[in-house]
């Protein structure tokens, strides 16, 4: 618990979170900063939902960078179970040691008067093989045991199955787990836990109840411009404003997959590489595939490039003023 004090000082206010994340390269909206602040104050996990590419994963990484804590990442997938998530016995090592220790075991057993007695003695010895030395910690256990605390990212939790979700629930309620052969492992410093979800399936109520629920949507133009400025500083202010205004316009179209922040960043990078100073119809047409992933979306947007550009230039001009 003692290191929690240091943490608490750094997460002194919502403004401190905003500043800290900013320094770590993450531009947080006010609700995002509030979520991280409360996660720390209330010792509660944050469930982050939102479309792909809005910075859910990056948020956890940035928090870890900022606080100087190790990031423990657990990628979820169907069929993920405790042996992959929590711990596993090092069978190989157990086997090796039994072989090596065979000579030591023989006399112990040899003196036994009866089979019962031999088994009795074996029991005493057997425990040795199910001790810490033979335990392979997986992400969840590692996060609990990190001496100064950790940021635990449980990524895409909606891809795991319901049983695993139920297991997480127990872990997240008191930050401890019980390993039958060893006992209860309790976090010295509760990790800051972020879970992300793309809403592949509905998560259970119980899990949601235990978490703070943060929805990250597409950013507004101002915030998105700040994100681009931080990620692609080479893009000049004028170009940056046009990029953001254009992407925001695209998001108003009826597309199969709307471009996300990650696409805006990629696009800005491409445009910088092409030495673009401002957006033009041809340039946009040639690079549209950076923003849109479906053929049908590209076709739909292609016919709208002129009006979108017109509005984007206008909006960029007013934003500059």
């Amino acid at each position, binding site marked *: 618990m003692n290191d929690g004090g240091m943490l608490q000082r750094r997460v002194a206010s919502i403004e401190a979170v905003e500043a800290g994340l900013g320094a770590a390269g993450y531009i947080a909206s006010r609700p995002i900063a*509030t979520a991280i602040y409360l996660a720390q*104050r*209330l010792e509660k996990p944050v469930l982050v939902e939102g479309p792909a590419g809005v910075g859910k994963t990056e948020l956890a990484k940035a928090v870890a960078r900022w606080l100087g804590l190790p990031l423990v990442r657990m990628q979820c997938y169907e069929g993920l179970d405790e042996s992959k998530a929590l711990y596993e016995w090092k069978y190989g090592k157990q086997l090796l040691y039994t072989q090596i220790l065979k000579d030591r075991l023989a006399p112990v057993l040899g003196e036994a008067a009866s089979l019962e007695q031999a088994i009795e003695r074996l029991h005493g010895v*057997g425990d040795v093989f199910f001790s810490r030395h033979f335990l392979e910690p997986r992400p969840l256990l590692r996060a609990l045991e990190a001496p100064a605390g950790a940021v635990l990212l449980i990524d895409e939790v909606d891809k795991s199955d*319901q049983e695993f979700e139920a297991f997480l629930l127990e872990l997240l309620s008191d930050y401890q787990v019980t390993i*039958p052969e060893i006992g209860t492992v309790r976090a010295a410093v509760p990790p800051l836990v972020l879970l992300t979800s793309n809403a592949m399936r509905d998560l259970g109520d119980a899990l949601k*109840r235990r978490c703070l629920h*943060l929805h990250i949507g597409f950013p507004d133009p101002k915030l998105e411009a700040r994100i681009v400025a931080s990620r692609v500083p080479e893009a000049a202010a004028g170009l940056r404003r046009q990029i953001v205004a254009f992407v925001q316009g695209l998001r108003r179209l009826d597309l199969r997959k709307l471009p996300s922040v990650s696409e805006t960043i990629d696009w800005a990078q491409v445009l910088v590489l092409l030495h673009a100073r401002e957006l033009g119809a041809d340039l946009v047409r040639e690079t549209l595939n950076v923003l849109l992933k479906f053929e049908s979306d590209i076709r739909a947007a292609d016919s709208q490039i002129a009006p979108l550009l017109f509005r984007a230039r206008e909006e960029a001009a007013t934003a500059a003023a």
Partner: protein
Amino acid sequence: MTAPLAAPVLRDFLRAARSAGLRVSTAEGLDAIRAAEAVGLADRATLRDALSLVLAKTAEEKRRFEECFALFFGREGFREVPAPPRPAAEGAPEPAAPEGPGAAGGIGGGDMGGGATPSPLGRMLLAGDRAGLAAAMEQAAEAIGLSNISVFTQVNMYARRIMERMGLEELEDEIAALRRDPAGAERAARLELARDYLRGEVRELVQRNLLLFARGETERWREEMLRQARLAGLDRRDAERMRVLVRAIARRLATRYARVRRRDRRGQLDARRTLRRNMAWGGVPFRTVWKQRKVEKPRLFVLCDVSGSVAAVAEFLLLFVYSLHEALSGVRAFAFTSGTIEVSEILEREPIEQAIAQIMGRIGFGSSNYGTSLEDFEKGWMQAVDRRTTVIVLGDGRGNRTEPRVDILQRLAGRAKQVIWLNPEHPASWGSGDSDMLRYAPHCRLVAHCATLAQLERVIGDLLRDHAG
């Protein structure tokens, strides 16, 4: 520091949130209070963000939350920043700026001439002390329990009680006294004007509270009504709501039993099986085997009579079962009237309304014949029934005096883990007229009356619980 101040306001807000349809558990309520303490009440936007994190957990809930928050904290006169001390009302809220007679510097000015000693209420009204009035109004509302308002017919009553609590009677006496005195006529008129203005304000406060607090009562009440309503007699709008409710309940059940199963899973080392499995390694426990309580998810066969009034119940049973699929290891569904068809595929492919329409199109509302339907089932699918299968039959058991073929049901019961019969008819009429229910009953592990969602929920809940151990 903010806690004592925050608590009552937040408690009211939580009630408002629940009324707006947010399911706020006790733990979440406490979290909300802690969150509010952590961010303070001063900055409304921050408070909104913080509470939203704790209280709203889906897009729909976020929307409701925003609406409720705006409505609640948009209340005039609610200000958490204490006003500079005033003799009229200590620690009173900062005045809001309502449009009205009081808006421009007081209704009556400060003129205290005339005979009668003004009551505190009269004094505030004449001085145009909106801060004091707002505070007194909130206090009175709190004292008489305005947040208990539940239907619109109560608006007048609550408004009157608030006025009385604020000192209406004294004020009326004062006005009457002034009327008797010719010099007081003007003051009396001013006071009357101010009183009517206040009445308007109070009514508005009551209305707002009705909106905030009464919605959920109706919502909850409607849900309870729906649970108890006969599934066969719903109108279109209620049917739509019922579908939403069925899905929600099924989800809740599925999650609950997933958790129960999990708890039972980690067992103890199974020494015998560990040794056996590790023979190849000379008995070294290379692969450990754990004793596990054998917990299997139920495998269901659902046979639904879709003739007559049973069809409506069938729709909800099927919807229920298919919303549960995560808690089941497999479902197959069959529909029958005078013959049986499998409908699993339609149900997996189409939303329930369309699926039912298609099923009806295929085997229609013909008159029931349980005997031939059972024959069809035996021919087509009896082989697929095994000891892990629970068979649910939904039907009134009325075969229009055709041969019921009880023998087939008996064979079915022999193969399956169990047969559960759900009958939408009241038990009093089982066996009357052409009902063969009592002849089928001995071969069923359970025959349950199942005309409402509440009954359906109980049966399925029990089934899952049995399986969860």
